[in-house]
């Protein structure tokens, strides 16, 4: 069995809800290590490009579910 991939969808004009893992360490109100965030940015960027052909010409409606801001003790 296989899944539908975001890359295969036409996202123009769509409201997109993205579930991400954003549990990054935060100290004094600043993100101290952002290893996860750039990877997730690529997802946003790709979604953006998919709906508009390029990044600069406007953008789709997007939403994201923020995941975990702080270190997740379960992992």
């Amino acid at each position: 069995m296989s899944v539908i991939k975001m890359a295969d969808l036409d996202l123009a004009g769509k409201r997109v809800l993205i579930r991400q893992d954003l549990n990054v360490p935060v100290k004094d109100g600043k993100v101290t290590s952002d290893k996860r965030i750039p990877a997730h940015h690529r997802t946003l960027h790709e979604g953006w490009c998919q709906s508009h052909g390029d990044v600069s010409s406007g953008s789709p409606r997007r939403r994201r579910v923020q995941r975990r801001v702080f270190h997740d003790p379960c992992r």
Partner: protein
Amino acid sequence: MIPVGDHMAALLGREVKMVKDWVEKGVGSINDGDLVLLENVRFNVGEKKNDDALAKKMAELCDVFVMDAFGTAHRAQASTHGVAKFAPVACAGPLLAGELDALGKALDNPARPMVAIVGGSKVSTKLTVLESLSKIVDQLIVGGGIANTFIAAQGHNVGKSLYEADLVDTAQKLTDDAQARGGDIPVPTDVVCAKEFAETAEATLKNVAEVTDDDMIFDIGPDSAAALADVLKNAGTIVWNGPVGVFEFDQFGEGTRAIALAIAESDAFSIAGGGDTLAAVDKYNIADKVSYISTGGGAFLEFLEGKQLPAVAILEERANNQ
């Protein structure tokens, strides 16, 4: 949420709206192109229980739901599973799809011998992983607090080390079973001990049989590390999850460093995953020499066990029933 939103906005060069009480109040008015960061899903009542009512509210927010959190794909929760049931379209994001492709390819027909290193503090949290992996791999290497329980199972004193007395028999059985299959779960022959858990604690190298009542084992010794490095050098596939010592403190990091360097030098297809493991990969600067780095911890291990990840299962179901 605010530090993460600020950080994102800076990286993307765009405004990021942040919404706290989005389940009850929705996200307010948004325009084409707006990027909205929603408050931590874990704060929502019903998230962990995969509550349908909560999942429906999430699904109502969107036209397309994109699951891109591989690290939580092993949990059936409202934001990972329930929402995918009810969203008009549910799909895998590039990170999740990339993980599934890479891990699937690597494990479908792994080059042998296959070696897994499972470290971490407790046998109890990784028991099923240990049981499953010991059947799949040719050699299982245990490290950290997990190894202490195996050391105790060999009849050695582990002093005040972290270990689980009630799982000593289980550890013994895992070893016996592995040996019956022609494999092994080796325990360290030498260990690095200290009298306290501290950055300044003095490290003492001991034979594993010489650990005293007031010792705490914090790392494997150089002989053990060399033996493991040999195993890794000859492996066809290496799976690494969990450091073998308290590598945050340099005096207890040599074992983990030796493992990391051996993986880097090995010709094996190597996969590393898990938060602590990735920190070690970073610290010893081997990221570009590991074949594949997974962002998942628990999900990574469950995938290795061959378990169906609930968040992936629902995406497959949705794709099938289109």
